[in-house]
Structure formats: structure tokens, C-alpha cells
């Protein structure tokens, strides 16, 4: 068993999301222009929760979608094909401010793939990035607009986000 450390318990995840929702509202004056797009696995659940929180702040429904970036990854060759998840974006992203939502920001390659993928669905006016955990070690010049928690990590460590697992509390764990 690897050594594990809880870096965000359930209550802290909830507080971080509430703060991120207020920051998104502060940055974007017109809530009607904002849509949320989560990257599975993890970001889709967070996007849904942020949609509820922002809906309460703005008093309007804030649409959310799910964007699978597997087919846009730059590391598909030479490894077993990863699972492809469904993409569901039930709205037009053209002219919108799209807030991409991911659980962990690491190399930045997933975000790069997500921005490529979004372009195939339309031309957003702006793309912003919200993540629950920023663990550093970027390979690309990418920076999050909204961060739940900055966690300095070693490359060998793993960050695991557990959300909506039946019978277990939400938590973010660092595995040494």
C-alpha cells in the first residue's frame, strides 16, 4: 500500500467549489454568456456541481456539457488505446465564454487537447480554465484561471480525486 495523505476532504472540496463559483461570477459579468464544459473522468462531475452553484448566484440556469478529449491526445501511439467516453455538449459554444473544468491540472496536455476539441464544436469567445487541484509540473504554457488548491507534488506522486463514489465521502488524496 502506498502512503496516502488526504489533501482535500469533502467539506474542503465543497468550499473550494463555492469559492471558484464566486470567482467565475466575479470575472464574468454577464452570466448568460457562460457555459461549463467538464473533462471526464472527474471534471464532468465538477462542472455539474459548479453549474448548480452558479445558477444560485446568477439566478439563471448555467448549461454544462461533457467533453472527452481522448481522440485529441498527443500520446495515442504506442500505448493501449484508452477508453473513449461520450461527449455531450447540448448547446452551441460559438460566442460563449467556455469554462473548461478539470479535476487535476498537471502537464497541461489534457487542457491543450480540450482546447483543440472545443474548436471542432465552434468558436468560443473566450476559454477559461477551472481546476480543483493544480499539482504543478507543466509541460506546456498553460495556466488555470480558477484553482481550488495548489498542491506542490513530486513527479512520482499521484493525485487521486474521488467524487460521487457510492458509500464513500468525496476526497482528494495524494499518494506518495
Amino acid at each position, binding site marked *: 500500500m502506498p502512503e496516502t495523505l488526504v489533501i482535500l476532504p469533502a467539506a474542503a472540496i465543497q468550499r473550494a467549489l463555492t469559492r471558484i463559483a464566486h470567482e467565475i461570477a466575479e470575472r464574468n459579468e454577464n452570466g448568460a454568456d457562460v457555459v461549463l464544459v467538464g473533462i471526464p473522468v472527474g471534471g464532468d462531475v465538477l462542472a455539474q456541481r459548479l453549474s448548480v452553484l452558479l445558477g444560485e448566484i446568477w439566478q439563471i440556469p448555467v448549461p454544462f456539457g461533457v467533453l472527452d478529449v481522448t481522440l485529441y491526445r498527443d*500520446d495515442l501511439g504506442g500505448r493501449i488505446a484508452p477508453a473513449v467516453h461520450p461527449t455531450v455538449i447540448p448547446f452551441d459554444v460559438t460566442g460563449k465564454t467556455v469554462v473548461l473544468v478539470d479535476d487535476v491540472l498537471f502537464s497541461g496536455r489534457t487542457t491543450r487537447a480540450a482546447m483543440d476539441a472545443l474548436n471542432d464544436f465552434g468558436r468560443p469567445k473566450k476559454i477559461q480554465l477551472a481546476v480543483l487541484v493544480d499539482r504543478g509540473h507543466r509541460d506546456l504554457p498553460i495556466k488555470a484561471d480558477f484553482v481550488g488548491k495548489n498542491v506542490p507534488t513530486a513527479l512520482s506522486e499521484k493525485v487521486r480525486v474521488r467524487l460521487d463514489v457510492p458509500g464513500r465521502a468525496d476526497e482528494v488524496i495524494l499518494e506518495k
Partner: protein
Amino acid sequence: MSWNRKHLLDIESLTAAEIFTVLDTARAFKAVGERAIKKVPALRGKTVVNLFIEPSTRTRISFELAAQRLTADIVNFSADASSFKKGETLKDTARNLEALNADFIIIRHSASGAPHFLSRVVNAHVINAGDGAHEHPTQALLDTFTIREKKGKIAGLNVTILGDILYSRVARSNIWALTKLGANVTLCGPSTLVPKTFEQMGCRVTHDVEEAIRDADIINLLRIQHERQRQTMFPGIGEYTTLFGLTKARLARTKPDALIMHPGPINRGVEIDSDIADSGRSLILEQVTNGLAVRMAVLFLVNGGQGPHGVTVG
């Protein structure tokens, strides 16, 4: 998810879990086909060769579009316009294609086992697009995908395959796939074309069409393959239609939710009544749409497979 095969050569050697992996992956690719931009960069920079040593239109075009929608480059190669006419062997042709850095070879050949042979002599990923009367794996995968999409499951369904079974690679691949996934398979057709020996593959054989279609949830019709019959195996087309063709009268005696499939090309008025082919009970065109998604999934999955040597897990 489980897939680490380098090639897709047949259905016989696949596990049920591997078949389901293809079907689940194909579902995501079908959604890609419904977008405004139907192209994804998953196979960018890869080269696919369509090596069709036997005529085909729909399968070749389906693979061609599948490769293009994955952003691969594709070259078509057909027997009549190639060096086969000049006496080059299959092995030499394939190795020449590989010398041009082909990453995938999609092969259709009149000889059973040609794709298996090819997979042993080249490093490229080999996909069987139909070999003789042996197998046509992507057809079986698209048929099971279509059945699962329409009926929500495959296990426990009654599937009747009606027509020329003996010469049909579509039938063999379908029998393997359906029995592995738990369907009850019935084969029916003239006794010369549906020998009892097929019972060894785990299905039921009958020569009574009324009985074969009565309890069927799916009726998969097969074309009479004139080109593969060495001599006439039944008296005539008219008699075939009378005894085994899916007519309106016969359709009326099936379950009301029984659905009709056909791998194409259809012979209207022979194995299927023209109006039935165009009716809401027919899945023929949906099979074509799903075929594209399934072939994209197969290309995507074998690209990640390294075969028995050097398996990597990401």
C-alpha cells in the same frame, strides 16, 4: 475495457469482453459522426492501405471514410489495377506497402486465412475485411452493435440467419459473435447451403423457414453468393424466393417487433421483398452508418495494441 491486440483477424479468437470493448468504443465514434465536424485527430500521421484483392464497394468506402475521419492518410489498392496481374505474390505486395511505411493494412482476399498469413510477414496492423468464406469480422461487429443499439441487449435474443450460410463469411463471423455474447442463433436456408455441420458452432439448423422466423427477434438475411458457388446448389432464384424469400406474407407471421437486417448488397425481390427493405422494420441503412463507427473503433483500438510482444499499459 480490454484490448491489446495488434490485429483484427477474426471473431473466433476474441473474448466477449473484447467484443464489448469494440462496441462501447464504437458508440463514442458514432457520436463523432453526428457532429458538424466529423473528424478527430486520433490517427494523425498514420498511413492506412486498403488492400482489396476482391471487389468491394461498401466495405472499402466504409474503411476509407473511417480512416479519413480519424485523420489518417489512406491509399486504395485493388487487384485489377495492381502488380498481382503481373504475378507478384501477396507477401511481396504487402512488404512493398510496408516499405512505404504503411501502418495499417486492411485486406480483403478470396483466400481464407490471407489476413492471418499477412499478419505473420509484416509489422503493420492487419485488419481482415473479408477472407474467402472464412470471416468478415467488422461486419459481425457492426451487426451486433446494431442489434444492441436497437434491442438494448444481445444475450437471450433469438437471431435467425437466413440464406446462403455455407459460402458466407458474414454468417460465420456473426455466429461466433452472437454465440459468444449469449444470443440464440438459428440458421435457415436450402439444405445444400445450410448443412447440419454448422450445429457444431453452437447454433440451431433448420430448413423450415416458417419455424425459423416465428420466434425471431432479429432476422439477418444473406445474399445468394453466385460468385462463390461452384455449381448450382438449388434449382433456381424463383424457387429460392418461393421457399426462403422474406415476403410480406412471411413477415406478417413474425413477432411484431422483429427487425430485419441484411449486410448488402440486397437483391430486391429475391431474398427480400422490396417494400420490406424500405420499411421501418429494416435496419439495412443503419447497419451502413454503424459500420463506419465500428471501423473507426477498430482502427483506433488496434493502433494501441502491441500484440503479444511488448505490451504497454498507459
